[in-house]
C-alpha cells in the first residue's frame, strides 16, 4: 500500500490502532448556572495550563501551533457566547461548548482561505480538549503506549501528536492529511517517520499487525514475508550507515582523494535557509535567489528592506563567499504590482536581466542595496540570463552608474565580485569573450539543458530530453570551464546536476571550482568527492566527451563509481 510520505525514515513494528472515543455530549439542564459557569471557567484554566505545558516541552515550530490554540482559548467572544448559552438555556457547559465551537468550525470550513480552514482544525482540537477536561476523559490511550509501536490513527490533532512518546512511537500512519498538515510538520520536527493520507485502512488493520513503513516513499507493507522484511532492514541499515559516514564530513574541507579543493556551496531562497546550510558545513552560498523579496508583496521591496536581508546573510556567512543573483523574474513568475504583458513563450521572453535592463529604475534599487551591502561580507553579484556581451556591458555600465551615485552621496562601497550565470547556449560559446569582463561564471544547468535541448522539462511528452549527461552538454561545460581558466577566473555550477552522484566525477574531471547545491546534498557530495582522484576523473571525462549519447555516459560513470 502507499500513502503520502511526509517524514523520512524507515521503521518496522506492531500497529497500535488508535480508535478515538467519540465524545458524546448530551444536553442536560442544570440547577445552578453559577456553579456551571464556574466549572466552565475552571476548565478553561486547566486547558490553558495543559497547552502551556506542551509549549514548554516543544521546540519553536510546534510551540507556534499551540500559541494559536491559546489565542483561541482566550478569545473573549467565544467565552461570552458559551457563558451566554449556559445562562440563557440553563444547561450544562459541555453542551454550550460544543454548540458554540461547532458553529465556528462550520463557519470557518466554508471560508475559501487555506489559513482559516486550518484554524477550523485547531478549533476542533480545542473543543476536544475542553470537552475531555469537562467530562473527565483522560488521554490515557496515548500515554499508555509503553512498547515500540507504529501508531495508526484516522487523523491526529496537534495535541495528540505532541503527546506521542518518541521513545515508543517509531512512526505513525494516518488515514487523512497531506504534506502541509500540522501532524506532518510535527513528525518532521520530531524526526519520526510518517505517512499520511493512506485512505480507509481501519477495517483491514488491527492492533498487533506487523508493518514496515518507509516515510520517504510513503510505502508500507502489512504482515510482510521474511524476504521483504530483510530487504527493508537492509535499506534501513544502509541509510543509517550512510548518514553516519556523511556526518563525519560536516567539518571537513571539500577535497578530492588527490588533494584538490573544490568549494561546496549551498543554494538558498531566503535568510531562513541559513541554519540548515551552516549545520551541513557549506563553504559558501553559491546561489542566493532574491525572488522571494519581490513575490507575494503589494509593491517593490524598497532599498532598506533589501539591504537588511543582504546584510543579514553576508554577516552570518562571515568571510565565506555569498553569490547573490539579481532578480530572475518574468514570463511565468508574475508580480501582482507589476504589469507584465502576457507572452506567447515566457521562457524565451522578457525575463531576468532582459526585464531588469528594460526597467532600470527598478533594477537600480536592487543594485544600490547590493552595493551598500558590500561592506558586510564577501559579496558576489551574479547576473542571470546573459545571452550576449552587449547585455553584460549594459548591466556593468548601470552598476558603475549606481556606484558613482553612492560615491557622490559619500556611501562606502567595499570590494565585491561580479559574475554571470551561464545558462543560454549563445553565452556558452561566447565564454571566451565574457570571461574577460567578469570575475566568475556559474553554470545554471536547469535552464541550460532546457535551452540546449529545446525541451520544457515540465512537459511530460518531452521530459526525456532533459539530459544532463548528454555529451552535447558535457562538451559545452568543458568549453566554458576552459575559457574561464584561460582568463584566470573561477567557474562553478548551480543546478540540480550538482547533487547527482553520477555527475560528481564528471564535474571534477571538468575542473569546476565550485559546486552549489541544496543543503541536504552537501555531505553526500563531500563524501563522494573525497573518494575520487582527479586524474581518474579527468580520464573518465575524456571518455565521456567521446560518447554518442547519455546512456553511454551513464554506463561509464556507473562503472567508475562501482569500482570505488
Amino acid at each position, binding site marked *: 500500500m502507499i500513502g503520502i510520505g511526509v517524514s523520512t525514515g524507515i521503521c518496522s513494528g506492531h500497529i497500535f490502532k488508535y480508535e478515538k472515543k467519540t465524545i458524546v455530549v448530551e444536553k442536560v439542564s442544570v440547577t445552578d448556572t453559577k456553579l456551571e459557569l464556574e466549572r466552565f471557567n475552571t476548565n478553561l484554566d486547566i486547558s490553558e495550563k495543559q497547552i502551556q505545558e506542551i509549549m514548554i516541552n516543544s521546540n519553536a515550530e510546534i510551540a507556534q501551533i499551540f500559541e494559536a490554540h491559546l*489565542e483561541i482559548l482566550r478569545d*473573549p467572544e467565544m467565552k461570552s457566547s458559551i457563558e451566554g448559552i449556559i445562562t440563557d438555556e440553563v444547561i450544562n457547559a459541555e453542551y454550550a461548548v460544543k454548540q458554540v465551537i461547532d458553529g465556528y468550525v462550520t463557519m470557518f470550513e466554508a471560508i475559501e482561505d487555506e489559513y482559516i480552514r486550518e484554524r477550523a482544525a485547531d478549533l476542533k482540537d480545542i473543543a476536544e480538549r475542553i470537552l475531555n477536561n469537562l467530562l473527565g476523559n483522560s488521554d490515557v490511550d496515548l500515554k499508555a503506549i509503553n512498547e515500540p509501536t507504529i501508531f495508526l490513527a484516522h487523523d491526529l490533532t496537534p495535541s495528540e501528536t505532541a503527546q506521542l512518546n518518541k521513545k515508543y512511537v517509531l512512526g505513525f500512519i494516518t488515514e487523512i492529511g497531506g504534506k502541509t498538515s500540522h501532524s506532518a510538520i510535527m513528525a518532521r520536527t520530531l524526526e519520526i517517520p510518517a505517512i499520511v493520507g493512506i485512505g480507509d485502512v481501519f477495517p483491514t488493520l488491527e492492533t498487533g499487525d506487523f508493518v514496515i513503513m518507509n516515510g520517504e516513499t510513503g510505502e508500507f507493507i502489512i504482515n510482510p514475508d521474511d524476504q521483504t522484511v530483510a530487504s527493508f532492514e537492509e535499506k534501513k541499515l544502509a541509510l543509517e550507515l550512510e548518514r553516519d559516514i556523511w556526518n563525519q564530513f560536516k567539518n571537513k574541507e571539500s577535497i578530492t582523494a588527490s588533494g584538490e579543493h573544490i568549494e561546496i556551496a549551498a543554494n538558498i531562497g531566503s535568510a531562513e535557509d541559513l541554519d540548515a546550510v551552516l549545520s551541513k558545513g557549506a563553504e559558501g552560498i553559491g546561489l542566493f535567489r532574491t525572488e522571494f523579496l519581490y513575490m507575494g508583496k503589494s509593491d517593490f521591496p524598497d532599498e532598506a528592506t533589501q539591504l537588511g536581508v543582504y546584510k543579514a546573510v553576508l554577516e552570518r556567512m562571515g568571510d565565506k563567499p555569498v553569490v547573490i543573483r539579481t532578480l530572475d523574474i518574468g514570463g511565468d513568475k508574475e508580480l501582482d504590482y507589476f504589469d507584465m504583458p502576457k507572452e506567447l513563450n515566457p521562457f524565451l521572453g522578457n525575463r531576468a536581466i532582459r526585464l531588469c535592463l528594460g526597467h532600470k529604475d527598478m533594477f537600480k534599487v536592487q543594485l544600490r542595496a547590493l552595493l551598500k551591502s558590500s561592506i558586510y561580507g564577501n559579496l558576489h553579484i551574479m547576473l542571470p540570463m546573459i545571452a550576449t556581451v552587449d547585455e553584460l556591458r549594459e548591466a556593468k555600465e548601470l552598476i558603475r552608474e549606481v556606484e558613482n551615485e553612492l560615491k557622490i552621496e559619500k556611501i562606502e562601497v567595499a570590494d565585491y565580485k561580479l559574475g554571470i550565470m551561464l545558462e543560454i547556449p549563445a553565452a556558452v560559446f561566447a565564454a571566451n569573450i565574457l570571461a574577460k569582463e567578469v570575475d566568475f561564471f556559474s553554470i545554471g544547468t536547469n535552464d541550460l539543458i532546457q535551452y540546449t535541448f529545446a525541451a520544457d522539462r515540465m512537459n511530460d511528452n518531452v521530459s526525456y530530453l532533459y539530459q544532463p549527461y548528454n555529451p552535447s552538454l558535457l562538451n559545452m561545460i568543458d568549453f566554458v570551464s576552459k575559457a574561464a581558466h584561460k582568463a584566470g577566473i573561477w567557474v562553478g555550477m548551480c543546478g540540480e546536476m550538482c547533487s547527482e552522484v553520477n555527475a560528481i566525477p564528471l564535474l571534477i574531471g571538468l575542473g569546476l571550482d565550485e559546486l552549489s547545491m541544496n543543503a541536504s546534498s552537501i555531505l553526500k557530495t563531500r563524501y563522494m568527492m573525497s573518494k575520487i582522484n582527479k586524474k581518474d576523473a579527468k580520464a573518465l571525462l575524456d571518455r565521456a566527451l567521446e560518447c554518442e549519447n547519455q546512456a553511454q555516459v551513464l554506463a561509464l560513470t556507473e562503472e567508475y563509481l562501482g569500482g570505488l
Partner: protein
Amino acid sequence: MKSASVTIKNPTGLHARPASDFCKLANSLGCDIKLEKEGKAINGKSVIAIMSLGVGQGSTLQIRTEGEGEEEALNSLVSYFDTLED
C-alpha cells in the same frame, strides 16, 4: 465614543498574522473595541470574530472605541493598519 474608517491595503487582508496581531493590540487596550464591515459589527478583541468577518484587501472597516483612553486607542489601532504590508 470615537470612530474612524480604514481601508485594507495589504493583499492578505485581516487574516492570518495580521488578524492575530491586531487582536493582541486590541486586547492590550482598556476600552471596548468594535469593528464594523457592511453593517456587521463584531468584538475587535476576538480573533475568531475578526477572521469570520472576512476582511479582504480593499474592504473598508469602521473602528469604534469606547471607554477609558478611547482616543489614544483609536489612534494606535488606525496606525496599525498603516503598517500592514503583507
